[in-house]
């Protein structure tokens, strides 16, 4: 192995992305699902910065900044919606939310 290369970062971020994705698919608590998506977004940031570092361009760095800003906005909206839901019913378990079904 020796030197730290871009592939190490890519593997790490791919692992983070897959962990986040599995979390979204497996976990049932809405807050946890939301955190898992945030983990996926952070994996993306790591990928972008790693590629920027490798290719010596700034696009990836600035893209990562935009992604962070968007993730923050998502957090504000998402938590507000989860709040609104928990006021109407006492649970935030994804399996308990099924008033809309065919």
């Amino acid at each position: 192995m020796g030197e730290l290369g871009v592939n190490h970062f890519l593997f790490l971020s791919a692992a983070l992305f897959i962990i986040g994705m599995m979390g979204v698919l497996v976990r049932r608590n809405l807050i946890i699902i939301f955190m898992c998506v945030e983990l996926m977004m952070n994996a993306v940031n790591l990928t972008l910065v790693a590629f920027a570092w490798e290719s010596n361009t700034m696009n990836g760095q600035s893209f990562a900044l935009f992604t962070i800003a968007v993730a923050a906005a998502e957090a504000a909206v998402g938590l507000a919606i989860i709040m609104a839901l928990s006021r109407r019913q006492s649970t935030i378990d994804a399996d308990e939310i099924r008033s809309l079904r065919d």
Partner: protein
Amino acid sequence: MLVELSNLPGPDWGLMLPQLAVFGLALVLLFGDAFMARAQHFRVLTGVSLVGYGLATALLWTQDGRNEATFFGLFRADGLTVFLSLVILVAALLTVMVSASYVDRLEGRMPIGEFYVLLAFSVLGALMVAAAGDLVMIFVGIELSSLATYILTAFAKRRLGAVEGALKYFLLGIFASAILVYGMAWIYGATGTTDLDGIARALQTATAGDEFLEPSLLLALLLTIVGLGFKMAAVPFHFWTPDAYDGAATPVTAFMSVVPKAAAFAATIRLLVQALGPMRDDWLNLIAVLAFVTMAFGNVVAVAQRNVKRMLAYSSIAHTGYMMVGLAVYRQQGGFDVGGGATGGDQGVTSLLYYILAYTVMNIGAFAVVAWLQHRGRGLTLDDFAGLASTQPLAAAAMTVFLLSLMGIPPTIGFRAKYEVILAAINADTAAGLALAISIVVLSAVSAFYYLRVVAVMYFDEPARTPRTESTPLLNVGIGAMAVATLLLGVFFSGQLIDLADRWSRALTVVAQAGGGG
């Protein structure tokens, strides 16, 4: 690339007037909502919205015929920008007409100022995607549009269904965004640039046997298509659609069935055709399969629906499938015309663009009639439409026009749009194109069942109760305009509209970089 800061060319603000107009509208609405007496909100802010979107639509002509980029290629004004912006702004105008009285009176009187502000930001995000020349711009535009739409979905927050639909939409939406942006990161990694034209250029010069490039690009392509599939509600990424459409207030459903979908298709055309056009052999078949599954699933499941709003939700999934056919038969050679000479537009993408316009008018129209009935105390199930023709003949006639158009019966605009898509599929001269053309025809026959069922209930059943009378002038004007447009645009002006759509291909030529950089 090192640039002297003082030598940086200034952006060309004159190139983005329509987008700036909508941004200005959003700010005016925000301040109007904050500083005006609540009693005036309905009248003044509705007027301001209508004028603002009208102005932005008129300003689109300043972008027509230009093919330029500014902000270092981030923002582009080309044929694709103009046509998709036209669709989005028309949808915004119609949504204001449909939603004004609904938001003000039904579901516990929602705050109309905030509603218009969120609407304006969602429209602005969609316009940004339509004018995007860079991956960052596509991502930020989609997110701006989606975030505002999530809140709009939850806007009727006193009803549990609205919040629940918004929650499903939100969670799957951000999940899709994360997948999409991961795909974008890999595109950037493989090509070293986020500029769409730069990506196409890098792909064309790439050597065929590059060990790293090929798998990473295929991964990027797959992630991107999955992410975009969620956004445009293609099967198998559609789970959120029926719940979100059913839960949201009806005017919001009308809006979100059109504008976020138009934004998603804008992003798809920009990404797949403009940037990844050189590797279209890798994505054409995938899109063809998705198109078939989407239209088959949407049509078959819609048959089982008794709730008209939910039926229209599944029907909108089916229409996504028809639109994707236009993309699946894209066949223009190369994605990037280095010579700069504009070639004729690809028929598939042109038909897709025209279909979005037709879909906008007829689909918002159908939801508008549902909202009209809700004003008069009727519900959303099929039984609520019973005998509509004898009690409210005009509404029944308008609904019939919209449903026949969605079905694709001549001379409506829906027929013309479907005809163009089928023609493009046949002209593609491939087995997949032919199969898709046949599936559209067969599945349209299936769709006739559930559309005509509503018509039959309206005309042949006995009315269950006497309707409430209520005055909704703006909504009436909107429904009337959409009904006339649905009936006549398929016959008159369709040539001009298709010509306008056809100019999208100029997006593929090198643009003069007014804003420098590159």
